[in-house]
């Protein structure tokens, strides 16, 4: 079976008055139907830009300048705006970070859910309303009939995020993009929303791209993880590979900076020193080199190539290249 989503060497830049900001510098990955992929990275690493481009929602000065995005047999990068609209909200949906501002304050919940149903299906008003009730029940909102008549400001943050999920699921999308869906919520609600997403995925079987900077969320939800830094995927692998066979220095840094519940001694958290790179003038070599503890001369000169560590695990770091080379050289001597 083919892939649901195939992104090959995607390059995307924002053309600002200050110059070209290379937001994505050759991102490639693919997803099969039913996959759950976590994209992790700090602010500005290109997580959101990558997933918005799948929906053709790149914000204004941004433009795709190379590569291809293939979703479910459609070439997203070659589609017209009109064709794109048929896919948005229908085959691919998105849940945004801030549920407090993502719903239109002047329309009822019912209006906003029915809108997307009626846009993509031929359902009548009454049928759309019935479907909306069903959706609200599905996302765990009680008294759905009453909620349909309420306005966003009458609902709590967690409740609004459930409504956003209902809107996203309205047309049974093949791919759901969750852009930090729990960042704006408090911790207990975060857990509820994540649980709901896992449950819905089992029920409906769609693929999910989970964008987050919280490694905890990724480990509990995803099968595969892409770690992004400065517009590139620096390491990609299954959850176990990323957590236990960490190969990229940046991923190691990320893991060092989360607290461990099990540690008995009081370990200090180690932050990653320095600041993210300036995307207006990206460095010639590895973008992480200036902040990397194990930086070598070559790291500053050349971008490291991807090294396959297993069928599902690859990473872009000169250290691995070096280790592989030494292994090969040692083998020859014996």
């Amino acid at each position, binding site marked *: 079976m083919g892939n649901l989503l195939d992104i090959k060497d995607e390059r995307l830049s924002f053309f600002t008055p200050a110059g070209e900001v290379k937001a994505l510098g050759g991102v490639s990955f693919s997803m099969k139907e039913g996959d759950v992929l976590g994209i992790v990275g700090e602010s500005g690493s290109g997580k959101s830009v990558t997933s918005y481009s799948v929906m053709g929602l790149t914000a204004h000065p941004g433009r795709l300048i190379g590569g291809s995005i293939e979703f479910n047999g459609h070439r997203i990068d070659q589609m017209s705006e009109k064709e794109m609209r*048929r*896919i*948005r909200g229908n085959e691919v949906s998105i849940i*945004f970070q*801030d549920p407090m501002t993502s719903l*239109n304050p002047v329309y009822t919940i019912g209006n906003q859910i029915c*809108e997307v149903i009626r*846009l993509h299906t031929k359902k009548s008003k009454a049928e759309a309303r019935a479907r909306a009730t069903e959706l609200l029940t599905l996302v765990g909102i009680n008294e759905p009939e009453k909620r349909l008549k309420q306005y966003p400001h009458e609902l709590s943050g967690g409740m609004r995020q459930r409504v956003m999920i209902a809107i996203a699921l309205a047309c049974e999308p093949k791919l759901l993009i969750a852009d930090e869906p729990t960042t704006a919520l408090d911790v207990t609600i975060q857990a509820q929303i994540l649980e709901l997403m896992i449950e819905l995925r089992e029920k409906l079987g769609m693929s999910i791209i989970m964008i987050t900077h919280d490694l905890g969320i990724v480990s509990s939800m995803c099968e595969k993880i892409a770690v992004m830094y400065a517009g590139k995927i620096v390491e990609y692998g299954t959850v176990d590979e990323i957590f236990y066979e960490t190969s990229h220095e940046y991923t190691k840094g990320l893991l060092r900076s989360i607290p461990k519940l099990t540690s008995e001694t009081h370990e200090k958290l180690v932050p990653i020193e320095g600041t993210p790179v300036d995307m207006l003038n990206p460095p010639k070599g590895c973008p992480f080199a200036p902040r990397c503890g194990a930086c070598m001369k070559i790291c500053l000169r050349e971008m490291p190539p991807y090294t396959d560590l297993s069928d599902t695990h690859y990473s872009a770091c000169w250290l691995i290249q070096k280790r592989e080379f030494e292994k090969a050289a040692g083998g020859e001597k014996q």
Partner: protein
Amino acid sequence: MGKYILKRVAMAVLTIYLVSTITFFLMNLVPGGPFLAEKAVSPQAQAAMEEKYGLDKPLSVQYKNYMLGLVKGDLGLSVKQRGRTVAQIIATKFPVSARLGGLSILTAVCVGIPLGSIAAFNRGKWADNVVIFIATCGIAVPSFVICTLLLMLFGLKLGWLPTVGLNSVLHYIMPVTALAFYPTAYIARLMRSSMLDVLGQDYMRTARAKGLGQFKCIFKHALRNAVLPVVTYLGPLLAYTLTGSFVVEKIFTIPGLGSEFVGSITGRDYPLIMGTTIFLAVLIVSMNVIVDIAYKLIDPRIKLK
């Protein structure tokens, strides 16, 4: 809702009481009187006139009499327009001004809102610059200059439009344009900035992510949110515009209420000053209540207390 309206009506009565009291004493503080300009009047005749209109009594008695009349709905007799009551003057002059003002506000809304929105959609491009230029002109150029320019061009040079009175549809074009110029410019500016704000909101991104077309995004999701500041401005604007403009009415020789405001003050026509001022106050207060209710209808988050 009922309780809210009741509260607002009580507030309105208080406001109007204060406005009329302040106006009454201010007006009497100004030196001069209604009969001083007429030189040929003998002292006896003047005394007789003052007695007729109650101006010979002490100010406190005059005030009491006026307020008692006001409560009964009696605005008194005009001192200068003999034989006519203030209520009659307002009743004949207001419809003329209101028709003119209503048309110009309609024009301002129908032109200003699209202009401002178009500017916002094309931020930084030439269409935006054109709208900003027109809006700046509209706000900076006073109405008598616009009236004169219109008269010169369409009345005199081209001879397309009649210059005096309000006898046909064609007569309305120039005064309505002149009156609409400022509010159009103001609404366009308001609309541009609020539309820019709304376009950057997260719910607009949600609308796009649902697969809605440009048209639906703008007309359903953006416009209703962006129009609120314009509604706020519309309340007082309506009150002022419907009661007429002195300048435009003078230039186009239109028998409207706007001329009466100024005429009554220069002629010291005390009852007419009071009448027109109270009328404007009532109009402003009621427009504000209507605006508040409209607000509630547009944005459900607003609570009327």
